[in-house]
């Protein structure tokens, strides 16, 4: 899902995604400053490290294609939407600057996909889905798995729109959504697996588990 340099040639798309992502990161920093829960402090670096490691492991799917964890919903549910967005921005910056994975000029586009859509959007979609399900561990994990899958499909659709605006053929939309609908199953499985492990040992460290429906969102 990491868009490399050169793929986006449409100036307004690059400018708009850069501005939107800068705004999201700035707002997230502000929100975190007022709402930071002390229990989250050690979890931030750990979540960033785990998402980075998870993104290194491409798993094969059909059609000569592989996928990897995005981790946006995982970060959002563990830490809340704003810290989740910041963690994804840290991971994407380290990958782009240190590893050439994802472009420098399109860092805003990549943050918009994995930080804004997956972490922030994913958190709020999760809250809506979870409200429809029983308030139980199974309901929580079911909502998390569905939201993780949806975040990959939604991010792929938006990435495809970025590509279309840069002159790629229309078929890229169907390929992006079709392939990522399969990759999203892996995302859902990893997200549910990790959340299950954390809930089994330290449920107090899962921000979305602590915040019942209707309660103010933590950082």
């Amino acid at each position: 899902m990491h868009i490399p340099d050169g793929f986006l040639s449409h100036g307004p798309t690059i400018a708009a995604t850069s501005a939107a992502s800068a705004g999201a990161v700035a707002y997230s920093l502000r929100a975190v400053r007022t709402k930071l829960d002390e229990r989250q402090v050690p979890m931030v670096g750990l979540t960033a490290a785990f998402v980075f490691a998870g993104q290194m492991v491409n798993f094969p799917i059909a059609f000569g294609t592989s996928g990897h964890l995005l981790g946006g919903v995982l970060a959002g549910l563990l830490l809340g939407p704003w810290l989740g967005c910041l963690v994804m921005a840290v991971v994407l910056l380290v990958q782009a600057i240190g590893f050439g994975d994802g472009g420098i000029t399109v860092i805003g586009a990549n943050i918009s996909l994995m930080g804004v859509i997956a972490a922030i959007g994913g958190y709020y979609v999760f809250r809506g889905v979870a409200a429809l399900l029983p308030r139980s561990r199974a309901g929580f994990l079911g909502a998390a798995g569905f939201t993780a899958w949806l975040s990959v499909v939604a991010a792929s659709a938006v990435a495809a729109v970025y590509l279309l605006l840069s002159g790629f053929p229309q078929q890229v939309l169907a390929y992006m959504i079709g392939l990522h609908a399969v990759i999203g199953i892996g995302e859902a499985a990893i997200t549910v697996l990790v959340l299950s492990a954390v809930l089994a040992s330290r449920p107090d460290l899962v921000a979305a588990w602590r915040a019942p429906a209707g309660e103010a969102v933590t950082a």
Partner: protein
Amino acid sequence: MTSGRWFLLAGLLAALAIGMGVSYAASGQPDGLESAVLKAACDGDEACLEGHAGPPVVSGLDPDYSSGWLAGLTGVAACFVIGSGLVLAVRRRRAAEASP
């Protein structure tokens, strides 16, 4: 050691194990975005895909890590340090604002 420190240590070890070990088993096939572009715009030609990506914007930003474990160690450590540093800076600033 408190349960929080044990949890942190276990989580870091898991991240390092994935980044330095499990990543060796990662698939080398194109990821979803590359594959979609290959199929939609390049007729499966990988040279065409590289042509779309173009040269690096800043040279030297795509280091050739001779060992996958080193890349995993470097990336996991960098993300942990920067992520922790960010939240500690936020906490310090909040404390400074709260003090009279």
